[in-house]
């Protein structure tokens, strides 16, 4: 079973987006918050909660992405 990046504790996410920035650099070698397998979106207006949109059609089990989260929102687990 391949391993995947799992947003296990998104209730703690503060929306800094550093995971997106790093994911883009690791996968595309570019500075961007878009264009990788990972996007952070606001759950809804007026609510300071966030959700991770992950494209599991791509490789996602980057430990660097898991580890950069200052709130420890991610795990890498078998998908």
């Amino acid at each position, binding site marked *: 079973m391949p391993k995947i990046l799992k947003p296990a504790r998104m209730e703690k996410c503060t929306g800094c987006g550093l995971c997106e920035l790093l994911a883009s650099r690791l996968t595309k070698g*570019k*500075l961007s918050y878009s264009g990788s397998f990972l996007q952070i979106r606001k759950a809804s207006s007026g609510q300071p909660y966030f959700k991770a949109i992950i494209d599991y059609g791509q490789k996602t089990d980057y430990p660097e992405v898991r580890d950069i989260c200052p709130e420890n929102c991610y795990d890498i687990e078998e998908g």
Partner: protein
Amino acid sequence: MVAPTFLQLNLTSRTFEVKSYQDLIPRIGGLGWALALYEQFFEEEPIVLAGGPLSAVFPGASKTVAVFRSPQTGFLATSFAGGNLARFLRAAGYQGLVILGRASSPTMATVDEDKIEFTDASRFLGLETPKVFELVSSSAGVPGRQSVLATGPAAEKGIGYSPLYVDEFFSFPRGGLGRAFASKNLKVLTVAGEKSEEIADERRYREVFESLYRKLQGHRDLAQLGTLRNLAVEKKISAVPTNNLAESSLLGEELLAPSFAEKMAARRISCGGCPVGCIHLLKGDKRFTFYDYESVAALGPLLGIFEPVRVAALLEKAWGLGLDPVCLGTVLAYLTETEKLNFGNEETYLTLTDALFAGREPWARDFRESVPVYPKSLGITGLGFLPYFNGYASLLSQVLFLGATTEENRGFLLDLDLLEREIDPAELVNQLVEAQYPKTLAESLVGCGYLASVFEDPATSFSALQALGAEFSHDHLQKTARDTFRQKLILQHRTGFRPADVKIPEKFFQVPSPQGVLEKEKFGRMVQIYGDKFYDPIQ
């Protein structure tokens, strides 16, 4: 280094132009760029918003600077906001915006890379600030994939102390940028984009990124408590203005950050690209509302209120109407004293705030454009007093517009150093001005001012810029910071600010500060030294 590209929005003609400025490259970024463009378009009353070279690609470089003429003071104003504006400006392909002209009717400007639209914004008028964000999010763009700037209803009604709100929970504080937007009939501005950039030096970028990340991880105290942590320091030295500065000691412990957070804070959030997450939100009856030291002190102790839930009611009201909490607190405290009302009654303050907003009565009209400098008012040249009564340097830095917030000037910290020792007035002024040079460098990089120890370090700036291919020498960085500071003073002068004209409410010389009762004559001497030695000679 690539020439910074700015998007010019002309609201009068509803047109736009994209311009790259080769001549701005040596100005580093942020404040340096924004002041230069403000000067270039001076006659057109521009509003300039700028990120910096490090914006959104290094941790903590999360701010956007605004340079504009303050509707509150009439003088040049600078203001810094967090949120995601810096990130989306960069992703849209711009280092900033220059906003010119005035729309003929309330307008929403939408920037999505090179697709720019001007549309009718009348559906947003009169709505409480959070409702505006809710409506924008439901009608345009993807939540969290764009930056949204909006004014509150107070700005529409001509109240000068109306901030510009960013991404719901952030704002450009002080100076009335919301009102400046409203005077151009610009109600909402959204910025989106998905552009990416090459990395000039991957190895060096990674090293600097990791080093910055580690440094920022050391700011856990700021993350857990927010800037309200400052209240414990201010309480300890008896510097919290209470009951319109009738005294400066805080009663009780309930407003201190840990207790406030326990009772009210539901969440904390981050600016784009910052791992610290120091923006604290309380959950009130109706909504989430952000709070920090200044807003809690101004709508709490300054009004004789010491319970979190009662302060929260006023914070929620201020945000809903789009009023700067510091100015609102200053006005309400003044009214309480002069009208002989009772301090500490938040119900009265909620009623007064509604009346101020409605502006039907003569007193309410008096307080619309700015916070007047009356003997019993804590107004400072149109602004409300930042509630740190630490001593000479805190007051001086505000009066002289050395920086509108604690993020922008060192007066508050300098005063803490002076608690145990006397200082010559000339030396104090000198230290205050010297401290502005590294701060100006950080403001040109637009690193967060609350992370000063990181972004005021020239070595950090040098390495980060080099990783992005910007080959500035240490000397250039330091010289440019000084030049930028000087340009700020020149533009302050051009907008009419004269240190010699400064008027200080008597109140500040009647109540003991941690440095004792401030002497009016000594303070006046400091203002004069600043004018004679620093301000006037460069004009």
